[in-house]
């Protein structure tokens, strides 16, 4: 056995997944968002070819859904074919989004692709020039909700000079992700592998150094919460020592930030600030960016921003300039979380209606249940209508900061009339 392999570790491509939570009217942006997962796949292929790696590992959730779409299947088949022509093999495990049982195969994958079995851990030997080089261990998800500790079933064959494990799992019960195939770092260490190619968590990162266990993360952020750079890892395992180098690939970067507009007075200034944020984001990432901005701070401009249509018009003006740039920036949503430049403490100290408003808001903000009750009463018809329309709408995502915004709305109205 030659004591060195070099491969690309990617995961969670979610081909065919819609971008959640973005409303892009611009055709160019829409096209880029729809194509982004496929472009990430293309980038992975280019990386494999450019680096002349030994093989590619895809650690689950290649497709977004069990019923794989046509385009996702064809895209993967084309990618595998391109790699096959360069003599690069592909090793795939299915994840919770694309379990092995499910979906109709409409595009055949070349023989150079190996999909790991779902009923047990499978060992496959990668050969170079007819000589065994590396053993790959993997196990796919047979169904979506796998609660079994799959990592516990991995055991290295002592004959393996290099052993790589491929698994889609939640290591360490990562919050915000379904707890599928739960396992611990200890489980990974016990298997005796040289490298764990993990999938499921969309943020790239190293889980453990010994053995080196890495979440490749999604090569393309899928929604506004998946901010920052995404990509895959270029892995080298040599004489039992593994090292992984992150390679950014995302064709569109999600960005979220706040802008303190405390010192600003006019809409033009806000517009300039937003445009600057967009330009900075484009400069920082050097690739298309979808950005969300929360405007913060007590400012003179709050009153102007609150006028009907003002913020929308402002955002459209900024978009018109930034979306035509190269790389483009789509200002996805600007939330006005500003407030009037009033001294809340001074108002609290008063005895007028404003003081009552602030005092009641303070009381309400400290009582989440009360807020929930009030919102439940007020929003029940709306939520019922949304549920009837098939929208999974609830009050869960609404933060208590809504009380502050409500308070500011009332204060704005009061102060506007007093002015």
């Amino acid at each position: 056995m030659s004591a060195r392999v070099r491969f690309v570790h990617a995961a969670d491509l979610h081909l065919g997944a819609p971008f959640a939570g973005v409303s892009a009217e611009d055709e160019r942006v829409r096209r880029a968002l729809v194509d982004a997962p496929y472009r990430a796949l293309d980038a992975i292929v280019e990386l494999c070819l450019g680096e002349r790696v030994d093989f590619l590992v895809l650690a689950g959730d290649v497709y977004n859904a069990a019923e794989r779409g046509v385009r996702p299947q064809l895209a993967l088949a084309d990618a595998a074919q391109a790699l096959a022509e360069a003599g690069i093999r592909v090793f795939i495990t299915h994840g919770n989004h694309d379990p092995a049982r499910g979906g109709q195969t409409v595009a055949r994958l070349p023989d150079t692709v190996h999909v790991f079995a779902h009923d047990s851990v499978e060992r496959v030997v990668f050969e170079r020039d007819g000589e065994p080089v590396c053993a790959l261990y993997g196990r796919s998800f047979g169904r979506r909700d796998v609660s079994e500790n799959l990592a516990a079933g991995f055991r290295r064959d002592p004959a393996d000079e290099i052993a790589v494990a491929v698994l889609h799992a939640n290591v360490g019960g990562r919050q915000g992700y379904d707890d599928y195939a739960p396992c611990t770092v200890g489980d990974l260490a016990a298997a005796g592998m040289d490298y764990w190619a993990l999938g499921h968590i969309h943020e790239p990162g190293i889980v453990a150094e010994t053995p080196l266990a890495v979440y490749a993360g999604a090569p393309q952020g899928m929604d506004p919460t998946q901010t920052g750079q995404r990509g895959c890892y270029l892995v080298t395992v040599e004489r039992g020592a593994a090292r992984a180098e992150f390679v950014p690939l995302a064709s569109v970067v999600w960005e979220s930030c706040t802008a303190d507009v405390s010192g600003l007075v006019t809409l033009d200034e806000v517009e300039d600030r937003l445009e600057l944020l967009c330009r900075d984001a484009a400069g920082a990432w050097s690739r298309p960016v979808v950005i969300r901005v929360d405007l913060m701070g007590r400012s003179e401009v709050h009153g102007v921003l609150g006028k009907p249509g003002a913020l929308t018009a402002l955002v459209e003006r900024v978009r018109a300039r930034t979306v035509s740039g190269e790389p483009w920036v789509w200002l996805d949503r600007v939330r006005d979380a500003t407030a009037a430049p009033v001294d809340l403490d001074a108002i609290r100290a008063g005895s007028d209606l404003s003081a009552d408003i602030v005092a009641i808001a303070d009381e309400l903000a400290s009582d989440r249940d009360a807020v929930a009750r009030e919102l439940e009463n007020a929003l029940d018809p709306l939520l019922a209508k949304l549920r009837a329309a098939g929208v999974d709408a609830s009050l869960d995502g609404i933060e208590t900061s809504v009380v502050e915004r409500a308070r500011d709305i009332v204060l704005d109205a009061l102060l506007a009339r007093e002015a």
Partner: protein
Amino acid sequence: MRLRRIEAVRFGALEDVSVGDFSDTLTVVHGPNEAGKSTLVALVRAVLYGFATKSAKEAYLPAAGARRARLIFEEGSSRWVIERTEGKNRGPVTVRSLDGDERPGLLEELTRGVDESAYGIVFGFGLGEMGRIAEEARKKEGIAAALYAASAGVRVSPDEIRKELDERRAQLFVPRGSTQEVSRLIKALDAARRRLREARDAAERYSEDRRALDALDEEHERLRAEVDEAQDRVQRLTGDLERASSAVARAKELAGTAEELAEDLAKRRAEAAAITVDHAVLEAADAIDALAHQREAVAQAVRDLERLRERARSEAEEFERVCSAAGLDLERVRTIAVEGPIAGVVEAARDDIARLESEVAARRRELERAEAEAERARNEAGKALAPVGLPASASRADLDAMLAEIDASEEAAGGGNRGDWVLKALMTVLGAFIFVLGGVMLGETVSLVAGPVIAALGAAALIRDLRQRNMAGAGRQEVFRRRRLLEAARGAVERAESAREAAERARLDAESAAALLASRTALLARELEASGLPSGLDARGAAAALDAIRRAQRHDAEARNALAEAQRLAAVVERFVERVGSLAGAVAFERTVETFDDAASTLSVLVDRLAEARSRAEQVRAIESAAAQVEVRLAEVSRQKEDAEAQARSVLDEYESAHASVEGLRTLLDEAMRKLAATSERLEQVTAERSALKERLASFASDEEAAQARLDEAGIVQRLRDVVEEHATLSLAIVLLDRAQRRYQEERQPEVLRHAERVFRTITQGRYERVIVPLGGGRVEVWDGTGGAKESARLSMATAEALYLALRLGLVGCLKDVGPGLPMLIDDVLANFDPERMDGAIEAIAELSASRQVVFFTCHDDVAERLVAAGPPGTARLELPVRR
């Protein structure tokens, strides 16, 4: 701020009427009916808020002229007039100061928070307006809400804000609405999902295309293999044909080349054979080249030979001439060693004799000069001795004796000297001065006279002494002159004796030098004789003879040397001539060679023959070299031709004999290409179909549409979630406002109502205990002692009027900053009150007037009296005159 006066220039029936001054607290204005009380109340309202339009029911138009009225307000010591005149916009109003600072905003200040309607209901009212406060209570935006807001410290109605928030919320969502944001988004969402469903349905059709693609894939694969095979065959045939054709053509081309080369070789060899080469000359080439190389040097030797012979002759002749001129024998000259000791002797003698001759001449010239000097000195001495009377032969001793005599005579003559004379003169002057000074200082006349006398005596003595000295001087001058002559003569004699001695010494020196010269000349003569030279020669002659011998010997040597060199050169030339002659014989060139010219001529011929022979030999060598190359090339071409023939055979041997030729291969290739073209064409068709189908599948519209629809769906859902949040925010804002309003109703409004309640209780003498305004009820209720509630509309007119008055007094009592300068003008509202309630009402009015100015108009004297009696300090009563 207090209202001080009301003035009607022209207002209704009032003209030039001025009422005042009003008290700071309560002013009761009593007047009969028709006195203008209601008009005055209306006037105040008109000045504050504007005249009613002329068509209005209560326009208060004067009988003649335009409406004009004013109010005079006072604060401290300042007074202002607010005057309104007839005009546009309900009449322009002016504020001017009577006494104090300008306050242009006074009117707005006074009416702050109180609009005209509120004023009419609360501040300036009569019986006719009493019930309106209850009506207003039913209106959410009316005076009650305004008063609530005002009393809460803001000049904004919370109901307005609530209305705005409701509207904003309603733009987002109303339960059964269809045009709101939520409804529109849900419609858009339905549309997106419909597209998604349609796209999914359309995806079903994908299977058929997929099967067709599979069939095309198989055919494509088969055709691809056939094409590959055909391409391989075409490629192989093309390569073989190309190689065979190329080899055959090359063999043919090489055969032609070999033939040309053979012809060329034969031609060159014949050409070389036709050239004759002089080998004898070539063999002697080195000797010829060597002699040709020496020829110029030998020619130069011939020329030098002649020149040397001539020079030898010339030098010999010169030798003989020099010897003859010097009178010397030739052979003797050759033997004299001119560079031996004699040369030094002659040279030294010549220098010594010349120096001695010069010395002799110099001594002789010195002798002559010394003798001349002695003679001249002797003559000078004679001349000097003559004046003193001595002969020329006198000596220095004679003269010294005479000078001794003169010295002795002068010593004897002696005599004073000049110093004595001067001392005497000074003593005379000093004595005269002392006497005069003493006389002046002491005042002595004798002394003054004695001074001049002494001076005169002194001067006389001096003059006498001077005369005696002049007479003795004349004899001494003669002695001095003789002495000087003697001393001069003594000097001249001394110089003459010295000159004579010098001349004698010069004569002795001259004689000594002449003797030395004669001795040296004799010595030279002896040396010359010993050397073989003529002894009669002087030093210079001997030196000249030596020079001549030296020249002669040099010419003699030159002649001998030239002859020796000439002989050496003659031998060289002779050897050259012999070698040329010998060489000519060796190369069969018959020519007599005896002289250098013969040899030079012969050698030229030989050199030319050698050049010609070399040229021809070179031509032959070049032709032979080229021929050799042609021969090599011929061999190479022959080998290549054989290789090409072998290569062609090796390619063609692969095929059956029927096609084992270039033509046969070409036939096979044509067939293979036709087959490849046909298969490729079919492959292209299949590829195009497959590609089109694959592209259609890859960019499957349903899939793409689904992606777009999903993107739209995601965007709409996000927007709906945003709307939910926005709706939640607005709902909470309304909750906050409602709670704040409720808090007011519970914590602040009751204070207003309690005030009104207290007033009402006072007026009704405790019959009614509570006044309540239920939240959102828009009505006023009173509770009597039994706990029963009565709505205001159900009360008796008197009780209702009491309630309305109580509400007003209660409200105004709570209004601190609202309408801060507005007085309450009440127009006879107690008419329907029974005495008990009237007392209560009066008490309440009097109480209010302590904090807010009240002007109560009444036609009832007793009411006026009772109000004045109950009023706080400063209460005033004014009487309105009856109008005529």
